[in-house]
């Protein structure tokens, strides 16, 4: 189980997350939606400790990090926490000097100290899972965006995270490549992977989410099942956000 309590984060005077509380059960998929600038990326980045919270508690399994304005956890604890979470970036961020296979192996060999042979077997398995077995020896620049993103997913899975984080994994992709990536994520969900996904793909959210969270302006406005939040939102701001999203989808389809 992953618990986030009273999580706050400020950049200078600007408080971007203003007290977030979330609980993610093992095997659950949580989808986070919300307008631009609401703090979705910042929330994911702080769970992955790429950004340090100014205040709050993060806990996953047995490890727990306490942040207060005066103190932050030591580097060892932060590293140990981070190693239990995997991150899939909006812009993939693959290592350009490594092949697809090497990208997936890297964390296993360098961080987990697995032998290369062992890491290779596991990485090939993961590449097969994301449908890229035949691209193992390609460099990132030789892959399409969708393929790169699937390597990104395999890389994040490689370190056996207890929680996998996705920040708009398909928003940099051409529309025809989105499906392959979403399919991989759905399969992971089917296998019981615990995930937090930021996305604007509402149909996908409805299919995959156990919980949908609507965020605005650094706070959670409402959360519940996809049916509750997407189909019958109780808050005006959620309704407004969803109707705008609908308009833009309809507009895109017209174009």
């Amino acid at each position, binding site marked *: 189980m992953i618990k986030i309590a009273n999580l706050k984060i400020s950049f200078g005077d600007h408080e971007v997350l203003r007290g977030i509380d979330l609980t993610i059960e093992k095997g659950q998929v949580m989808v986070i939606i919300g307008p631009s600038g609401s703090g979705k990326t910042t929330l994911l980045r702080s769970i992955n400790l790429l950004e340090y919270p100014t205040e709050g508690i993060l806990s996953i399994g047995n490890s727990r990090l306490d942040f207060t304005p005066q103190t932050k956890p030591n580097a060892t604890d932060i*590293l140990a926490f981070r190693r239990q979470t995997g991150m899939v970036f909006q812009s993939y*961020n693959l*290592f350009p*000097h490594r092949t697809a296979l090497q990208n997936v192996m890297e964390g296993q060999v360098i*961080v987990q100290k697995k032998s290369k042979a062992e890491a290779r077997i596991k990485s090939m398995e993961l590449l097969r899972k994301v449908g890229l077995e035949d691209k193992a020896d390609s460099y990132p620049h030789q892959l399409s965006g969708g393929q790169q993103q699937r390597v990104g997913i395999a890389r994040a899975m490689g370190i056996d995270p207890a929680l996998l984080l996705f920040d708009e994994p398909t928003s940099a992709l051409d529309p025809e490549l989105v499906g392959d990536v979403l399919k991989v994520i759905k399969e992971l969900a089917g296998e019981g992977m615990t995930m937090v996904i930021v996305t604007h793909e509402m149909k996908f959210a409805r299919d995959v989410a156990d919980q949908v969270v609507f965020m605005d302006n650094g706070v959670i406005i409402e959360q519940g099942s996809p049916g509750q939040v997407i189909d019958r939102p109780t808050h005006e701001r959620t309704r407004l956000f969803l109707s705008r999203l609908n308009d833009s989808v309809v507009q895109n389809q017209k174009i």
Partner: protein
Amino acid sequence: MSDRTERLIQIFIDSFLPLLKAGVAFTIPLTLISFAIGFALAFLTALARLSNWKVLNGIARFYVWVIRGTPLLLQLFIIFFGLPSIGIVIDAFPSAVIGFSISVGAYGSEIIRAAILSIGKGQWEAAYSVGMTRSQALRRVILPQAARVSVPPLGNSLISLLKDTSLAAVITMPEMLQKAQQITAVYYEPLLLYSEAGLIYLLFSTVLSNLQRRLEKRFERFSAR
């Protein structure tokens, strides 16, 4: 053929081997040794400049400031002619190596620092996200990419250094330029002999350029650009 032309050709032929020898015995080792030491110095200085440790950072900054801000020839004079007056006497070859290494270290550190800074934040974050420490991220992710970026400017430095070793002539090093001077004193054909030395420098620098090109090629395989 006129006598004059014949004489020039003969001088050219007779001088070629002595000049080449001076190049192989002094110019080349001076270049390679100084570059190797200078590169190590440059790397450490770049890391110091990027560290959060203020003292280390300050020392690195000061070093680069002094060396970049004063003439290389003057630095060689200080090492070779100046230091003996406080009891430090260093032979010409090691003096030259010290002077050139320190110079490469200062200029090179800026190249390496810029190359490291040119690698986007996303790469650091990707490395952290798979659990790497800062030093693992630097070694496995940032430096290999920074290496690619820094090959062309470092190649430039190496070729500059090759030519700058001629400055060592003034601290009594019998390298190529000094050899050309010596032969000129015998035959009084400065145009011919200095041009001939220039030709050999050109030969050496062409070899270095080719090495650089090959190194760049090797890096191309992982880069779309």
